[in-house]
């Protein structure tokens, strides 16, 4: 473990002027994760700039989701270090809540929203506005939720309000809600875990527009995606994961979509049998 790191509590970094004076919003250093005998991540080194959209691609089981979970405090790695805004993080102090405080937000495939809950609850779950006895200030949460819907997500006149439940929304709208929530809470890093999975073409376009708005607003984004065409069009940089390792780091514009596709297929060409078995 990394007990010997000379780091400050994760929470303190949030106070330490998250606005200025850092090069990388997040930097992973030799991060490894093992589940029993299975090595999910091996020595991952990855740095994300402050207004960079980084596409994270790779097959199922390449370790994309595991890496996201480590970065956002859901999962503690077996070894390695993490720097947030160039400051080292103490794993003992790192958690989902700490990541929230550090203005990291994750939009998971289908795990971001409670389906039966109204939108205002979904916006604030995990960081409710409460009085000192823990009772939620519903009116305030509703008001802000309505504001997020109008200002950050642009849901105007679609018949969706703060009291709508998630189950009433389409797939693209759901991702919009999750991304809008991240923007409202002023996240500096938004992690998108396959936000376009199982969405209709029109819905995908909505989501891609949301991702563009992340870039425009000066934030950083890690965008995990299966569909190469989606990431290729958006990302500043593409990082390719394969069986728990980073095998390529490709700046935008240096490879066409066809070249990229061929490159990815080529990864498994020598070990085609193994790849198929997987």
């Amino acid at each position, binding site marked *: 473990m990394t007990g010997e790191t000379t780091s400050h509590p994760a929470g303190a970094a949030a106070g330490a002027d998250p606005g200025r004076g850092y090069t990388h919003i997040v930097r992973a250093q030799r991060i490894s994760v093992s589940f029993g005998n299975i090595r999910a991540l091996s020595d991952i080194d990855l740095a994300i700039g402050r207004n960079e959209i980084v596409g994270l691609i790779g097959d199922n089981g390449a370790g994309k989701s595991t890496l996201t979970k480590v970065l956002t405090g859901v999962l503690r790695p077996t070894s390695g270090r993490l720097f947030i805004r160039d400051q080292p993080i103490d794993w003992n102090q790192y958690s989902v809540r700490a990541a929230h405080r550090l203005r990291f937000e994750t939009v998971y495939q289908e795990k971001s929203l*409670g389906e039966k*809950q109204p939108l205002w609850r979904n916006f604030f779950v995990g960081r409710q506005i409460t009085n000192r006895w*823990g009772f939620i200030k519903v009116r305030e949460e509703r008001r802000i939720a309505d504001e997020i819907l109008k200002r950050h997500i642009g849901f105007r006149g679609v018949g969706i309000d703060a009291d709508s439940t998630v189950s009433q929304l389409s797939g693209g709208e759901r991702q919009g809600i999750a991304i809008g929530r991240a923007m409202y809470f002023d996240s500096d890093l938004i992690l998108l875990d396959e936000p376009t999975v199982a969405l209709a073409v029109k819905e995908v376009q909505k989501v891609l527009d949301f991702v563009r708005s992340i870039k425009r607003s000066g934030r950083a984004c890690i965008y995990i995606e299966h569909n190469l065409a989606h990431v290729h069009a958006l990302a500043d940089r593409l990082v390719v994961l394969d069986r728990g390792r980073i095998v390529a780091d490709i700046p935008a514009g240096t490879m066409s979509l066809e070249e990229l596709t061929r490159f990815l297929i080529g990864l498994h060409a020598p070990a085609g049998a193994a790849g198929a078995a997987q």
Partner: protein
Amino acid sequence: MSDARAVPTALPPRHGGLWSRLARIEGLPIVVVFFVLVGAFVYFAPEVFLRWPIYFSFLTTIPPMLVLALGLTLVIAAGEIDLSFPSVLAFSGFLFAWTVRHTGLDWPAAALALAGGALVGAVNGVLVAVVGIPSIIVTIGTQFFWGGIAVVLSGGLSYSLQRLDHTLLAGIFTGNLFGVLPMQSLWAAALAVFVWFLLNRHRFGEHLLFIGDNREVARVAGINVRREVIKLFTLMGLFAGFGAILLTMENRNFFSTQGGGYLLPALAAVFIGGTSVFGGSGKVVGSFFGAYIIGMLDAGIVATGVAGFWVQVIVGIVFVVAVVFHLLMEHPGRFITIARFFRRSS
């Protein structure tokens, strides 16, 4: 867990039509059922139901079950279940009765009963949240265990508790206000208000709703699922302990199987009230009226002169009708599904 990809075939209307506005009023269907039922009782047995004593008797006997139903509403909203509460009625009831009988200290006896209930709940919570056994299995097991402990400790005897007469404790919790209103009904009603706020307006309640909705969502939202589940079961045990005190004190008697008849009625009260078995929502108002409906049916049906044999049949009908009514209020699209099904099969 439900699949977010599965877009429902009939999306509920988004605009606030009359139907959806009505559907948003918590517990409305069950309140309707309640008053229809009372109306039917008054119609068929006016000599009984236009007088106070029958209501007095309901307000005396139903509160322990209502207290259980309130706790269960939280448990079921979180996607869990607790079947061990009948044994808490026995175990906590024993702690209370034994202490009163042997020491005469009624207040400490009540505290001990609550602590006993909380202990049972905490054990359930740890087994569910930390060890990871599904709550239905855990609480079937602990139901046997604590029920058995109550029998062993009491030697299977029943305790008469006449010495509670004229004590302050009994007066406060099971006395009669102005001679006409049983105190336990007020306590249970106050508890219902508290539970409503806890579930719908408190951080803890919101955590329960998200845990019941989707555990993984709750986890990535930063909710400490394990801790909240332990808290939840402990609270349920505490409620059952309180129910045990009310029951034992009202009866002025303890017997080691006194929880026996409560399992299904208390659960029925919650489900008839519209709380979803799938978790993620809890209807406290529904459970409140559900408990009174379930508690009223027996005596009510008998009073209307229908042969006692029919009681269970009618309970079954009321239960199913109430649940279907709820479903259709919340998912009007189901009308179409049902209509289609019958058209196709005919």
